[in-house]
């Protein structure tokens, strides 16, 4: 039993667009598809609403991974929000890389309203990946920044 309790359970925040990915998550639910309970879904109107600052805030507040779910290319309810999200996340991942935070912690996926199965697969795969990446390097307590532990 101790194996199970000791296992690192990642905290994952998923920003899901209400038109596609959130509906996809709903479909996964009504279809009784099981997926890891590590994900905290947050409904947003569009993946284009998820700014780099929001993703960084999630990481800062202790998320081990952040998933952004949007409509497939060409399907955005607001025409171009998902394209903007894609470019933004691509840049943000490079910024994370440069600053020493593993870019695998942030992932963008296209999940349509009919893709309950894909939602299930994505959450399972992302949870596994974050488990491999490990705990977030951001400390859980907000100790004084810059103070020297070694004295």
């Amino acid at each position, binding site marked *: 039993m101790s194996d199970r309790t000791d296992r690192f359970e990642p905290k994952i925040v998923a920003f899901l667009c209400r038109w596609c990915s959130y509906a996809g998550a709903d479909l996964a639910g009504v279809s009784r598809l099981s997926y890891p309970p590590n994900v905290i879904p947050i409904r947003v109107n569009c993946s284009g609403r998820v*700014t*780099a*600052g929001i993703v*960084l*805030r999630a*990481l*800062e507040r202790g998320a081990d991974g952040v998933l952004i779910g949007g409509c497939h*290319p060409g399907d955005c309810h607001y*025409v*171009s929000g998902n*394209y*903007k999200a*894609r*470019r*933004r996340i*691509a*840049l*943000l991942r*490079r*910024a*994370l*890389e*440069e*600053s*020493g*935070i*593993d870019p695998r912690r942030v992932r963008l996926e296209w999940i349509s309203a009919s893709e309950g199965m894909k939602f299930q697969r994505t959450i399972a795969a992302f949870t596994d990946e974050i488990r491999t*990446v*490990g705990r*977030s*390097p*951001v*400390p859980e307590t907000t100790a004084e*920044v*810059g*103070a*020297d*532990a070694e004295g």
Partner: protein
Amino acid sequence: MPKAKLGIYWAAACGGCDCSILEINEQILDVAAGAEILLWPCAADAKYEDLRNYRNGEIDIVLFNGAIRTEENREIAELIRAKAKYLVAYGSCAHTGGVIGLANLSERDRIFETVYGPRERWPRTESSLDGCVLRLPAFRTQLTPLSEAVDVDFTVPGCPPPREIVRELLTAVLSGDLPPRGTVFASSKNLCEECPRERTHERIGRILRPHEAEPDPEKCLLDQGFVCMGPATRGGCGAVCPAANMPCTGCAGPTADVPDQGAAMLNTLASLVGAGEEGETTMADEDAVLMQIEDIIGTFYRFGAATSILGRRYRERANPTDLD
């Protein structure tokens, strides 16, 4: 009217902020006549002992420039906070950590290695010779802005703060007519609001660095592909850099209520690149443009690394900048 008791202090800074006070030209004579300077290490002789001897709250206002890099910086910041009625975070380093906040991208050992060479030459907090002990303040593991060490009453952004804003601040100090605590001496809007350049809302098809091309002096720099931090940066300087045909580097920090300046700029730029919705460019084209941005942290977080999660040394690898 009693003279205003003024202090000016530098912590981890380059000295440019102290010079910026002289940029007010002949008005410095009014400061000399109307203020009693109790502390100004750059220009007047005073010891920390003198500072300790002031009563709490005795100094009316202290302009504090520079970031908190060493334990000395932190200790003096706390001391000044106790002695001053008002404390001003003066300049980028005190405000957001400034350019030197980029040091947070490297571990302390790596910084020492670069600056001092082999480990035996590194500064020690305590060393003794002939029975005498020499103590040096410790170099903190990361650099922070002033507001993380102590409460700050006013903020004067800029690297260095622009002349008109310094005038405004010193006029307020001399007259004793200070604005409410929390006031930022700058515009609440972004730089674009005061930039005279014309926006054409063109899509960016190529990222240019300032040395790669001569910008058109009339058109928006972003439209031309130069990464100008204007949209994510607080105005108040009068857009002096764009007026001199140089893109804004973001020294004034983010606009009010925006916590992360670099992230805001990253959003802006991502929205301007390519034209996916019109189907004129492919995702591969867009990625090629995005890849032309070199040194993302150094570009978007030139002055704000120390205030972002990205510059807070949460590291999965010791020195990410070693990757190249």
